């Protein structure tokens, strides 16, 4: 089922939202308002928004360490996300999670993992509960090319395959794991080929084309919802910026030419141009979307800045769900 025009506009809006949010994050970090470091999703928006567009509201997402985009695409409020990045009390995780853990259960983003590969078993379990509870929900699990070398990838795909769990494993292959070229640590050219080792479908898709991602993921989602089990999808993408902002990386490991070539395949430009050429959005629409978005981002930043830092005593809350005697202090 191809996307309807309104859905296509909404997809474009998601991509733009992630892009502008991330640009603002970079600014807030440079201004000293965001502590620590951040892994930005700029360049990956096609895979992220395209993938999430194939989900229903009740469906689940599991993210990664590079995961500001996933809750945005799933519909999170921007204010609590920005507040979380600033470590504020009104952050979506009360300031306890930060950039690598922008979990938002209200939109089905169940966890993000600073541990590379850590999300795959969780997503598998979310699939298990969907199956046992017959909820009809599915889980979309994002992970990186680097994560595909972890044992958790293998164990999870095997588990999901044997029990036909409704999980779609979506690899954002951006050709690098930190400074390490994927082809130097991957024994196969395409990660999708590994699907063969689990008897499940494996597909490669152009991650810069959000609509292409949508259609491949939608097919896998349908399959999962029909009870036919998991799929592995590899979206070829690229991060336009550094591995992380706020960390020192002492070498260059990508050549300029490669970066430039990929920047010409910007997922935002690709979709915007297409919708414009097909007459689905006008210049005016675009301007309006940008200005609405600017307001939302500004409001999110204002919300975040207005939120207080958490009280130190809050550090002792949320360790357990019920009051716990003795032992810990």
């Amino acid at each position, binding site marked *: 089922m191809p996307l309807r025009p309104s859905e296509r506009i909404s997809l474009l809006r998601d991509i733009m939202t992630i892009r502008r949010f991330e640009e603002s994050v970079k600014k807030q970090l440079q201004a000293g308002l965001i502590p620590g470091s951040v892994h930005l999703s700029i360049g990956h928006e096609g895979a992220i928004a395209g993938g999430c567009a194939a989900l229903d509201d009740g469906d*689940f997402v*599991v993210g990664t360490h590079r995961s500001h985009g996933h809750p945005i695409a799933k519909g999170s409020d921007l204010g609590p996300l920005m507040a979380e990045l600033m470590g504020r009390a009104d*952050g*979506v*995780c*009360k*300031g*306890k*999670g930060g950039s690598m*853990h922008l*979990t*938002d*259960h209200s939109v089905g983003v*169940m*966890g993000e*993992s600073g*541990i590379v590969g*850590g999300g*795959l*078993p*969780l*997503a*598998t*379990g*979310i*699939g*298990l*509960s*969907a199956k*046992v*509870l017959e*909820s009809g929900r599915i*889980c979309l699990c994002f992970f990186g090319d680097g994560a595909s070398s972890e*044992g*958790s990838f*293998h*164990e*999870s795909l*095997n*588990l999901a395959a*044997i*029990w036909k769990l409704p999980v779609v494993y979506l690899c954002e292959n951006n050709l690098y794991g930190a400074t390490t070229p994927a082809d130097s640590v991957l024994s196969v050219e395409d990660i999708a080929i590994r699907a063969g080792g689990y008897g499940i479908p494996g597909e490669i898709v152009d991650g810069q084309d959000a609509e292409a991602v949508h259609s491949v993921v939608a097919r896998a989602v349908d399959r999962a919802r029909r009870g036919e089990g998991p799929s592995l999808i590899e979206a070829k993408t690229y991060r336009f910026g550094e591995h992380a902002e706020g960390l020192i990386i002492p070498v260059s490991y990508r050549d300029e030419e490669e970066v430039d070539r990929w920047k010409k395949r910007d997922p935002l430009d690709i979709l915007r141009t297409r919708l414009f050429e097909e007459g689905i959005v006008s210049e005016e629409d675009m301007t309006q979307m940008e200005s609405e978005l600017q307001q939302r981002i500004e409001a999110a930043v204002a919300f975040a800045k207005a939120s207080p830092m958490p009280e130190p005593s809050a550090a002792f*809350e*949320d*360790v*357990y*769900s*019920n009051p*716990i*005697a*003795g*032992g*810990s202090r």
Partner: protein
Amino acid sequence: MSEAQPSRETTYFQAIFEAHQEEMLRDERVVMIGEDISLYTKSGILDGALSDRIFSAPISENGFCGMGVGAAMTGLRPVVDLTIASFIYLAMDQIVNQAAKIRYMTGGQATIPVVFRASMWHDGSNAAHHSDRPYPLLMNSPGLKVVVPATAADVKGLIKSAIRDDDPVVIFEDNSLWFRSGPVPEGEHLTPIGVATVRRPGDDVTLVAIGSVQQDALDAAEILAKEGTSVEVIDPRTLTPLDKPTILDSVERTGRLVIVDPAHRTCGAAAEIAAIAAEEAFHALKAPIARVTTPDVPIPFSPSLEEPLYPRKDAIVEAVRKLK
């Protein structure tokens, strides 16, 4: 356990499965995940009707422990059976990085009612890959609850409480107790997490005994009683959260503390209890705090090497005698 309640002699092993069966029948959200567990329904150990909720898994400890966590976040109450405790090292990532931390990292959004069970095998020539008691590692990992049931009643009551608890609980069972019987209260029986029990009251020495060494501790207390030393034997039952008041109150009365722990010595549960007493009951102490533990060596295969390593009655008696 209330005195009035009628009870039934049950083995530790039976009690484990009674707990599972009762909880699975009571609550449809309870599922089991683990290796070779389809044999429980096939053999009749568990009700055949439960087989739909028993996921007999591939040998993928990290994967299926994490699966338990994900399922727990989204409506199930999984019991993940790690079989032998030494296999927990394979799943440390999902247990410590995910199960223990997710609630906190999400600012309380997630609730993780998952239970991990591990049976500690030892004293049966299983050698170093099958004989560890790794609970100290999990005590150092905030976000988990850790229990070490030592009787049939406690293993039943603690498994049931763990399944109903909304936080991740790691249960360290003990295969040396499987065929020991004890009274288990009839009907609904829950042992609270976080509450110690006094197995024998006494006035001269506090003996904290962890897990499988209860009988050795009681035997030692009996011998010492004959010598005129009155020993109070405490079983903490839960290690996180530890019932400090029960232990400290006793130490404040007796002024002497011996801790018997069959786990490796360094940074073990015995070290923690000793440190708490040395900090919080110092002024009551009349003698050094003694630890009777398994020494820091991997567990050897040969019985002539393995057997002497564990804390037994005689070593406990000797440790207490030295305090005087």
